[in-house]
């Protein structure tokens, strides 16, 4: 059984001279960098313009509405708001590059340090959720793709349709009602019980890791039972997209001649899936997982609000109620940057995995 003839994607580039491959790789890197920079610049332009269309006058937030005209103008000058817009934008970008996101109007803390404290919670939740979503999604997608048209396919289709259609904040509420309040299977809102809140030393900010490292088994179990519900809800949401695209990709490969050839040569179903189909759908699956991860970072706004999870999403909701513009825009920028990096990075990684998808 020679795999090289059966899998067209795997081995082609190795025959080319190495120099040319390096140049191509550099070209792809440069292209990626350009689209990343354009994306980030665009995002900054958007958040910058948001500060200017805001109905709240930042000068009045600083000096109060009883200040004299002279004080007002002085503060305006100090904030740099009397300069021409392009100059203000350059100054704004400069501040962002120095991790200066301004001072929160409600907490009085630098927004950057507020965000640094909240980010690990969001990162932990989204990561656990994407692991759940990826395992379930790829598994279900494979099942549906390998037995198309049957009852398995229908079940997976219903699951993914529901995942696409259900409002996630409502699903979270129902999960809390059923699994926390009625069945007591999982921990309630928040990241951990009050009892453990002051005994855990925070080193990484990732509670699962911190409690694991501290060796306190009951604290670890507590953290696990708190993250389970929000992560399952978010993960279900990711499962919908991942399973559907995996199914489509598998189905497309199944009909190809190399699979038929492999089957004719007596390869088992497991062998066909693992050594023939999987390498060819890998790029698609990784793309959809990475994109789902980005969407989960965004979707955290809802889940965190429902589960009182102290991450960026909740920070954003709280800032919103306080009309705290620097905090809102800081959080938006942080999630936006992660989102854009993931989005553009996907193209790069996929190009490396699957030569057919290179631009």
């Amino acid at each position, binding site marked *: 059984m020679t795999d090289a003839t059966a899998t067209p994607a795997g081995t082609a580039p190795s025959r080319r001279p190495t120099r040319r491959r390096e140049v191509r790789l550099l070209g792809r890197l440069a292209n990626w960098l350009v689209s990343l920079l354009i994306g980030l610049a665009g995002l900054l332009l958007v958040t910058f313009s948001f500060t200017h269309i805001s109905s709240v006058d930042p000068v009045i937030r600083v000096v109060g509405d009883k200040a004299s005209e002279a004080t007002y103008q002085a503060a305006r000058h100090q904030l740099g708001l009397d300069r021409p817009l392009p100059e203000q934008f350059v100054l704004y970008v400069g501040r962002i590059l120095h991790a200066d996101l301004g001072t929160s109007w409600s907490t009085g803390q630098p927004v950057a340090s507020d965000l640094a404290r909240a980010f690990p919670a969001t990162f932990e939740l989204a990561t656990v959720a994407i692991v759940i979503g990826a395992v379930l999604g790829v598994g279900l997608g494979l099942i549906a793709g390998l037995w198309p048209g049957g009852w398995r396919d229908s079940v997976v289709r219903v699951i993914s349709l529901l995942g696409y259609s259900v409002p996630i904040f409502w699903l979270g*509420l129902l999960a809390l009602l059923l699994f926390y309040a009625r069945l007591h299977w999982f921990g309630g809102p928040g990241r951990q019980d009050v009892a453990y809140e002051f005994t855990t030393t925070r080193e990484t900010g990732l509670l699962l890791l911190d409690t694991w490292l501290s060796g306190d088994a009951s604290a670890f179990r507590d953290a696990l039972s708190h993250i389970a519900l929000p992560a399952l809800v978010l993960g279900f949401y990711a499962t919908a997209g991942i399973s559907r695209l995996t199914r489509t990709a598998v189905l497309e490969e199944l009909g190809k001649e190399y699979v038929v050839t492999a089957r004719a040569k007596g390869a088992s179903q497991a062998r066909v899936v693992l050594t023939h189909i999987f390498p060819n759908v890998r790029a698609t699956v990784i793309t959809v997982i990475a994109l789902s991860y980005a969407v989960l970072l*965004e979707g955290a706004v809802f889940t965190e609000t429902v589960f009182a999870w102290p991450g960026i999403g909740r920070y954003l909701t709280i800032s919103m109620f306080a009309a705290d513009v620097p905090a809102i825009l800081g959080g938006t920028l942080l999630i936006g940057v992660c989102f854009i990096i993931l989005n553009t990075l996907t193209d790069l990684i996929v190009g490396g995995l699957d030569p057919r998808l290179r631009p």
Partner: protein
Amino acid sequence: MSVTAAHEARRGGVLLLARRSPTAIIGATILIVILAVAALAPWLAPYDPIFQDVDIRLAPPGVAHWLGTDGFGRDILSRLIYGTRPTLLIISLVALIMAPLGTAIGIVAGYYGGLVERVLMRLTDMVMSFPRLILAFAFVAVLGPGLLNAALALALTSWPPYARQARVETQTMRRSDYLAGAEMLGIRGVRLLFGHVLPMALPSVVVRIALDLAGMVLIAAGLGFLGLGVRPPTAEWGTMVADGTAVIFDQWWVAASPGIAILIMSLSFNLLADGLRDLLDPRHG
């Protein structure tokens, strides 16, 4: 996307469509019911959706109030019925802005090519990589809650897929005999683009709109849930779920029914899109 399949579907009419794609028909039927409910709300609703009967706050579902009452003693069924309106309004506004905007950009880019195309597609790629939900959230949070702001925020970040799709279709059409014929007859410029290129790109636009609106229903409800939608006391589904959050453990029905309403509306768009895609594009069966 096959243009000929689209024409076949159009020629065959509704009956053929029903036989070939029951999913699309189920989705369309639910949507028509929802539209009818929205139009006939004053006649269908048993109570005034903002009337507060404080004596029967948080009443469980029963004979007088089929779905119970909320924390202000308002009839939940009536609020559900009226709640169809803001949701439909937001998503129609979004569709009316994003689809024409994106398609126009894509057609212009695909037809003229060159520098115009490069600039427009870079712009499209840029907006495509934006975090749509969080930007809409920030836009509304900074500008103030409201229906129009929410719709504008969603539309301005959702057009790129339309641009990409329209560009590809225009490019493949550019060298066709069909367009050469039109050009030979002296049809040029805007009239060529929108009289002859646009109609060919429309079927795929329709599928995409249905698919996008399913997501828009969820985002619009999400904005309402976070307090960024229409102002109270107007009945809106997302806001109603938020109202039920505080009493979820004891009076679960306050949050349950609006959530189901959101699910059904989103599901109907998803079914419609699924069915239409099956019809128009056999590759994604």
